[in-house]
């Protein structure tokens, strides 16, 4: 009997000590790394490389190539040179997969900073995994309300380790209102808001479009949330026609807008201004609409005409966009600037972090960022809420110039430093 008890105790002690060693191992590894000749900083980056959101990550390879060249010589931190390794993972446009690859980057690759981009379907699962594990995380390319409130954020507390920079709904609303301020257009708006993360936020009675539109004297016809990938917008079109809407707005995915816009033509609904978020961002989406793509308007987060330069190497917005066009033969897209800016912030954080071995210190450095990037200033001390920093937003219109569509900035009331490129033309 005594024997059994003794072995039991021995086993337990053994397990305990093994567990303690196992627990301590990462700390020991970290300790040795700091004194290594060439310590390596690991960055994990998650984006939708394939799937329906692939347009957002189309320019990733080009931007990452440029960034890898800049980081080739390593980054300085406290007089020590850190080699940089960027591990890229594809979310397949699937939030389940995004959560899985993010957790793999944290647990298996043990990245020092986790990065994520493009729509709540990527930023939110990535940031959630980072938050639970206390990993420093920077995301972009998703309006801040779906990011912050969509993750159950509390403005008083914020998040521990996850930070985000982009613009917000209030900026979109202000820009859209400025676009619609036209003497030849009645202040009657039809709203198309889907039942998804963006649609629910934009259509929200308190935080979304309805209140500011009413305050600015617009009447909004909102037939309710439609299910994404809908094939019939007759109910909405009928409601807009009977309300006499001259403006149409919303936040749609490209296939839904294509369906709506074709049915609007069939059913004789002819708004004078159509300003849609998300669906009209990419040149490919506009080209798919043919002639009817001309004159549609949208929000502009970044363009080659933005008067900003990269903090890494002084590249101008124009040079970055032109480089992409000449390297790929494709038209420039808005995410290019934000991908570049994401790594600008990382580089700046590494320079300032008190101790690269300590994730607390990295988080502190992120929170203390005040950096002029290629998309504007990123500064988390001025955010609308904790953990969020806002970049400037303007509005504009797709105008046919020759045989190509150009996205022309037509309103800059929210960011006067960005020059206007033309005037808004009403739809025929």
């Amino acid at each position, binding site marked *: 009997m005594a024997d059994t008890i003794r072995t039991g105790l021995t086993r337990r002690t053994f*397990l305990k000590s*093994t*567990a303690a060693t*196992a*627990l301590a191992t990462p700390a020991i590894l970290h300790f040795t790394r700091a004194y290594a000749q060439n310590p390596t900083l690991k960055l994990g980056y998650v984006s939708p*490389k*394939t799937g329906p959101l692939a347009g957002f990550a189309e320019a990733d390879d080009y931007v990452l190539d440029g960034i890898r060249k800049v980081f080739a010589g390593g980054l300085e931190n406290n007089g020590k040179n850190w080699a940089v390794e960027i591990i890229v*993972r*594809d979310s*397949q446009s*699937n*939030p*389940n*997969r995004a*959560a*899985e690859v993010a*957790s*793999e980057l944290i*647990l*298996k690759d043990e990245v020092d900073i986790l990065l994520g981009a493009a729509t*709540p*379907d990527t930023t*939110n*699962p990535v940031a*959630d*995994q980072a*938050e*639970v594990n206390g990993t420093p995380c920077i995301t972009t390319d998703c309006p801040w309300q*779906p990011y912050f409130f*969509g*993750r*159950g954020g509390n403005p008083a507390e914020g998040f*521990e380790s996850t930070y985000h920079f982009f613009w917000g709904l209030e900026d979109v609303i202000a820009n859209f209102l400025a676009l619609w301020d036209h003497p030849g257009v009645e202040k009657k708006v039809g709203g198309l808001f*889907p*039942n*998804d*993360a963006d*649609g*629910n*936020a934009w259509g929200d009675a308190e935080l979304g479009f309805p209140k500011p539109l009413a305050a600015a004297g617009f009447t909004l016809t909102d037939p309710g*949330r439609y*299910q*994404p990938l809908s094939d019939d917008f007759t109910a909405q079109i009928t409601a807009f026609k009977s309300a006499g809407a001259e403006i149409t707005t919303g936040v749609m995915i490209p296939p839904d807008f294509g369906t709506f816009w074709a049915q609007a033509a069939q059913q004789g609904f002819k708004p004078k201004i159509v300003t849609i978020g998300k669906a009209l961002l990419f040149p490919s989406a506009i080209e798919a609409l043919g002639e009817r793509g001309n004159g549609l308007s949208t929000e502009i987060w970044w363009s080659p005409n933005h008067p900003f330069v990269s903090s890494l190497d002084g590249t101008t917005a124009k040079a970055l966009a032109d480089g992409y066009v000449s390297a790929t033969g494709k038209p420039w897209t808005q995410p290019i600037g934000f991908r570049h800016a994401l790594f600008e912030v990382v580089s700046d954080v590494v320079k300032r972090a008190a101790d690269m071995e300590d994730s607390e210190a990295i988080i502190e450095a992120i929170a203390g960022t005040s950096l002029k990037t290629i998309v504007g200033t990123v500064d988390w001390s001025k955010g609308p809420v904790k953990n969020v920093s806002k970049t400037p937003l303007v509005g504009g219109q797709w105008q046919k110039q020759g045989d190509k569509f150009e996205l022309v900035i037509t309103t800059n009331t929210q960011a006067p430093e960005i020059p206007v490129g033309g005037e808004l033309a009403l739809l025929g």
Partner: protein
Amino acid sequence: MAGFSIQRSTRTSRATALVALLVLAALVAAPWWAGRADLRLLGEIFSFLALATLWNLLAGYTGLVSVGQQAYVGFGGYALFALAMFLGVHPLLAIVIAGIAGALIAIPIAPLLFRLQGAYFAIGTWVLAEVFRLSFAQVSALGGGSGASLPAGVVTGIASERFVREAMIYWTALAIAVAALAFVILLLRSRTGLALTALRDSEIASESLGIGIWRTKLAVYVSVAGLTSATGAFIFLQKLRISPDAAFSVNDWTAYVIFIAVIGGIGTIEGPIIGTILFFLLRETLADLGTTYLMILGAVAILVMLRAPKGVWGIIAERTGWSLVPIRRRVVFPQ
């Protein structure tokens, strides 16, 4: 002729039982020998093993080819979020409750689906999953179409120490996979198992032999729904975030699961285990190839279906005559 006896276990099956016990012991001890990332990956592997084993019971043994099991995965996930966020139920307890809730909700659904046969049943289950997806997209308390994140506090509330917490989550996954496997094996060894085998081969013939078809199918469907819901609850405890499209994803929770069962071998216990291992080997080595990876998966599935309709285990079993899990009954006459 009186001296015959029924034998079920074979020498291989007894050896397998021993090996399985050793493997199980090693897996139980995994928190002490595996890294954090390995534990998490194992957790995911176990959840797919459970889903594939359960789907295999439906399709391979009961003849209920469902392409809508994501209905219960998503239901379980949402049940976990609702219980943990609104009622403050301990997440691990919530997994059990989600399982019971999944079984309960399957009881009124089953009679509706059983009115459909074959391909119509398959489509019916998919429609059901879409109904679930659209319904949960309307519940604004759970984030509607936008989805919701599990507050970090719910997860850290499992246990304050990270090692303990991750070990507990891991053991939950292991328990779910073992429970699913044990359930299927024990069921198939029971009287119901015999009825199921008859049912799969010919519904009309088995009914004429006095098997209560409807009751047997109902019991299997409901219990599979319950276990699938519990697995779903666990999956979304690891994902931390739920949205209707992710929860009721036909690709993630049914297409991959069918792939696993098909390449492993439908209608065998060993099939889903081998299929799960193959699937994760493919994923861990090829997932970075993007769309090419999905095309390879598709090609593998087509190849296996054409060249080896019984799956990888089917080939092995045919060549060697092995039966690792003692389900089959053999009549033995004394020499």
